[in-house]
């Protein structure tokens, strides 16, 4: 039987506020345990939560960026469950009346564009952290993270493969980073994801029973966990079993999902409006004032890049995937002053490869847009060939000076003096009579041999177009 996969994602984006969502304690990552957990975060008796205005601003920005309705009235609710890293015995979240409803975003996959619906996004507080190792049979609790603002972004079950899910997740990642409402750091848990996965026979309308996958803290894990889970569900059904609605944890070491023990699972949350918090009322003036602060978003930027720089959809997508990349690219094009395609090729080729190899971000690149522009200008004015440029790039990366200095010091200037090239060509022809004879006898492939010999003799510096032309004339 042919099966169809159905995936919905719940993404938790930690909002980049200075203080917590309901208290004035710091949110900074990496502080000593419990030094950023105040009486409100600890849930001590008699405290009152007060909502952070910046969290509301950020949620509103997100809502507007995905074309959603920003609710004029939203309400906080208590989600009740017991766990030691949740000192109040409930998490303050939003349930029936979230701040953001019904948005959408486009994702691009293998040249096709698909719209993914966003059901809602709501504000809530994060829980603390439980450390289970090494405390003489007890668990240690760090409540620094308790009360950190989260925006939970819930998608429609619109994705049909792990690849689509990843494309959507990367898109949301890019949007929250463009908006500067979340640092997107997955290692530190600032951007995390749960996936609801089910399968159904192709053509069937009703959804199958879904499993919720947790603990997916990298793009790669999301893809692997979904693929594992899809195979597991199909095998289960085909061998006569039924899929249980349950929460499953992804085990990255084993590459599999396994059910959470029932003790870890609590799915009867008894939500009710939090009497400590009043409804949040937003008016049009506020919403419009936030709209006015929105930066150019990834999709707009991508379309502008395609139009202004005549890039392919793919190139434009890569170069606008982060604000930093897009900024570098525009500085580079401006620096070179021509040939945006050449700029794109170098950024996505040698520069991207070197950054990857050294595990660096574009912001930490030793070759800045200015420095790279200096070299691309020399390709453009034919001082060096594209091939020699690779050598120059390596020297730039190693910090050996600017492009002109490197070209000068290493004597890499392209030879365009046709007299000089002609002399070399004549030399090669007279030194290789056998090959000349074979070539003239019809072995066309030998042409490459002659080009290679000339390039070797000129250490790659001869202008390739001139070499070709002269060889054709003389052979």
């Amino acid at each position: 039987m042919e099966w169809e996969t159905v995936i919905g994602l719940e993404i938790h984006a930690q909002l980049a506020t200075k203080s917590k969502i309901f208290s004035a304690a710091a949110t900074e990552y990496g502080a000593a345990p419990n030094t950023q957990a105040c009486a409100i975060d600890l849930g001590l008796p008699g405290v009152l939560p007060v909502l952070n205005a910046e969290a509301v601003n950020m949620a509103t920005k997100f809502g507007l960026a995905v074309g959603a309705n920003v609710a004029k009235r939203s309400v906080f609710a208590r989600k009740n469950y017991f766990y030691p890293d949740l000192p109040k015995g409930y998490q303050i979240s939003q349930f029936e009346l979230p701040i953001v409803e019904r948005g959408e975003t486009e994702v691009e996959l293998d040249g096709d564009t698909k719209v993914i619906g966003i059901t809602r996004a709501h504000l809530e507080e994060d829980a603390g952290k439980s450390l289970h190792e090494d405390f003489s049979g007890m668990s240690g609790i760090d409540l620094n993270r308790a009360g950190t603002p989260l925006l939970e972004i819930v998608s429609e079950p619109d994705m049909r493969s792990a690849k689509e899910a990843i494309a959507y997740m990367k898109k949301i990642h890019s949007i929250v980073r463009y908006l500067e409402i979340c640092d997107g750091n997955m290692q530190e848990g600032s951007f995390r994801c749960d996936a609801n996965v089910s399968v159904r026979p192709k053509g069937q309308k009703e959804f199958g029973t879904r499993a919720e996958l947790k603990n997916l803290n990298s793009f790669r894990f999301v893809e692997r966990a979904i693929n594992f889970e899809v195979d597991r569900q199909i095998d289960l059904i085909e061998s006569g079993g039924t899929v249980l609605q349950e929460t499953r944890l992804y085990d990255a070491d084993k590459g599999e999902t396994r059910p959470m023990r029932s003790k870890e699972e609590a799915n009867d949350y008894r939500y009710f409006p939090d009497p400590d918090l009043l409804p949040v009322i937003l008016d049009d003036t506020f919403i419009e004032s936030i709209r006015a602060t929105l930066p150019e978003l990834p999709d707009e930027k991508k379309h502008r890049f395609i139009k202004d720089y005549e890039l392919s959809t793919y190139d434009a997508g890569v170069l606008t995937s982060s604000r930093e990349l897009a900024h570098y690219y525009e500085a580079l094009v401006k620096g070179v002053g021509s040939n945006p395609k050449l700029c794109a090729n170098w950024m996505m080729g040698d520069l991207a490869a070197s950054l990857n190899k050294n595990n660096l971000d574009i912001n930490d690149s030793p070759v800045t847009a200015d420095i790279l522009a200096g070299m691309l200008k020399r390709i453009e004015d034919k001082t060096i060939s594209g091939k020699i440029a690779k050598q120059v790039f390596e020297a730039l990366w190693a910090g050996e000076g600017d492009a002109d200095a490197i070209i000068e010091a290493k004597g890499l200037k392209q030879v365009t003096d046709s007299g000089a090239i002609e002399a070399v060509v004549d030399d090669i022809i007279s030194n290789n009579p056998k090959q000349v004879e074979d070539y003239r006898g019809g072995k066309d492939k030998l042409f490459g041999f002659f080009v290679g010999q000339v390039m070797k003799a000129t250490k790659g510096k001869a202008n390739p177009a001139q070499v070709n032309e002269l060889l054709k004339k003389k052979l």
Partner: protein
Amino acid sequence: MSLSKTDVEKIAHLARISLSADDIPRYAENLSNILDLVEEMNQVETAHITPMAHPLEAIARLRDDTVTETDQRVAFQNIAPQVEAGLYLVPKVIE
């Protein structure tokens, strides 16, 4: 509406309240009475009424995003039953 013994046990567990077996019938009756009252209220036509989120006719006041809390860990951990390395210790949560 009449709650069964298992309903009461489940509610007690969710609220982490320990009930003796003798208490259960009394709780079942009291809780059922409350639900009956809710059932009565359910008969009121409310389709055109915005659900009340808070008894006060007021809206949330927001605070500026500034850090004013200082580190009070020593004071808080003085009243905690057990601490180690800055962490609050609790009975092991996963076995």
